[in-house]
């Protein structure tokens, strides 16, 4: 079974998740935190795709598309907040 060998790769991604979380909690400034949350979102999107192959459930892949879109939304909100202008303009 070709899928089972993915189990050896997942721990590396998990280590990366923990390192991003450390930076997101520690980061001295707000942009650092937002950047770490970005990376967290990308590695989680990768997790979703890997797990949908790993658990042999093809239909749950639709969630990965949605997660990849909204990480961008969080970037946009925070940078608009940092620009110190009225949010609606």
């Amino acid at each position: 079974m070709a899928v089972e060998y993915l189990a050896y790769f997942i721990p590396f991604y998990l280590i990366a998740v923990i390192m991003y979380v450390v930076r997101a909690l520690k980061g001295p400034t707000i942009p650092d935190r937002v950047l770490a949350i970005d990376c967290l979102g990308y590695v989680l999107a990768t997790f979703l795709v890997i797990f949908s192959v790993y658990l042999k459930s093809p239909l749950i892949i639709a969630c990965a598309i949605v997660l990849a879109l909204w990480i961008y939304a969080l970037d946009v909100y925070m940078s608009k907040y940092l620009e110190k202008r009225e949010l609606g303009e």
Partner: protein
Amino acid sequence: MIDARSYLFAVTYIAIFVNIAITLYGIFVRPHIIKKIIALSIFGDSTFVWAIIIGFRKAEPYPVIPIMTTWEPTQEYVVKEFVAKAVDPVPPALVLTGVVIGLAVMLFLVFLSIQAYRVFGTLDIRKIIRMRG
């Protein structure tokens, strides 16, 4: 020797309870209204996770989603295997509407608190109480 899967699942279970306890502290003790609303939203999410955990089950090697991959209504053996492995579909159906309604209620509370700030000039609940005498 305990089963490793059961242990890891129990850790998840307890961690969600700890989250609920911390958010209850946030709702009752912290003075700022926006902080209370943030705590309330996390509280709702934690209860939703807990409701989903109740519907989880054990299957070999792993349970499947409560959605059939076949669209033909006549295959008996597919249905039997599906029922033997799928997770409970009732908690997702309840949580699904709960998340959207939770967002609408959060928006309503945010509108209310912005209006309160326009009237009182502050959102600290201690100062507002002092103002009202």
